[in-house]
């Protein structure tokens, strides 16, 4: 039983910043880089590297566009990312109840 739960604990979410990015994107349609930075209290480089890791796993979608002449990047959670994060949450909850 407990082995089964550990399987659902996703290694990719095993970091505060990545967990944070996913939490924010679960309840918001999208978020901008600066919003994530402010909410998580992370540095540019640190946040960027964790975003890259989540993008590589195809858990988040990056959308680049221009608002006027300013480049603007939006992040949103993919369907896969949302499903995996939900599994991760359920596993966490089960582990606590044990």
């Amino acid at each position, binding site marked *: 039983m407990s082995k089964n739960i550990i399987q659902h604990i996703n290694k990719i979410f095993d970091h505060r910043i990545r*967990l944070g990015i996913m939490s924010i994107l679960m309840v918001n349609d999208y978020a901008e880089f600066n919003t994530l930075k402010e*909410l998580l209290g992370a540095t540019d480089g640190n946040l960027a590297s964790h975003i890259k890791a989540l993008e590589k796993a195809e858990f988040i979608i990056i959308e680049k566009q221009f608002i006027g002449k300013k480049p603007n990047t939006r992040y949103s959670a993919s369907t896969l990312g949302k499903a995996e994060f939900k599994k991760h949450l359920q596993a966490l909850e089960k582990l606590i109840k044990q």
Partner: protein
Amino acid sequence: MTQQDYLKDLSEIKDLMNKSSRFISLSGLSGILAGTYALIGAAIAYWLVTTYSNGVLILDGWIFRSCLLTLVLVAAFSIITGILLTTRKAKKQGTKIWDSTSKRLVLNFIIPLVVGGLYILIILSQGKYGQSGGLMLIFYGLALVNASKYSIGDIRYLGYIQIFLGLIGAWQPGFGFWLWVLGFGVMHIIYGSWMHFKYDIK
């Protein structure tokens, strides 16, 4: 990882979900004051109508216009108080007053309210003013329910109460005034006090 770590993870997730999607710096005190303004406004309107007319309101008479002006003043004072006290609370908590969460809150609150306001003005211009008390309550209640997704979730229940009172008011227009007093006055004070003790005093 230990059980303690998992627990910390979960509470951090919950905290971030709330912080990123809800504007929670609403001040309970502003609810109490809005209710007080509503009671004062209602008392003025009641006094005007009972002293200067024999229970009949004429739509273009000065009494009706004074009542309408009182209503506008009550709304204006409530909004100004709400903005001031909420700004103060947000500053104290170190959160921004005008960010994506508060913008979303205001937008979702204002849509049912503006639609309701226009609708009431239209039926007033058709001389059907018996429904206006109930309609104000209904649209205000809908605005609260709609906005509750983006703020302190508890305001949803205040919304349900206002809608319920509004429907009674629509069904029994004779009680419209007293239901308005109950909804905008008494309920605001009760709810504001509850919010104040639950969230502000910590």
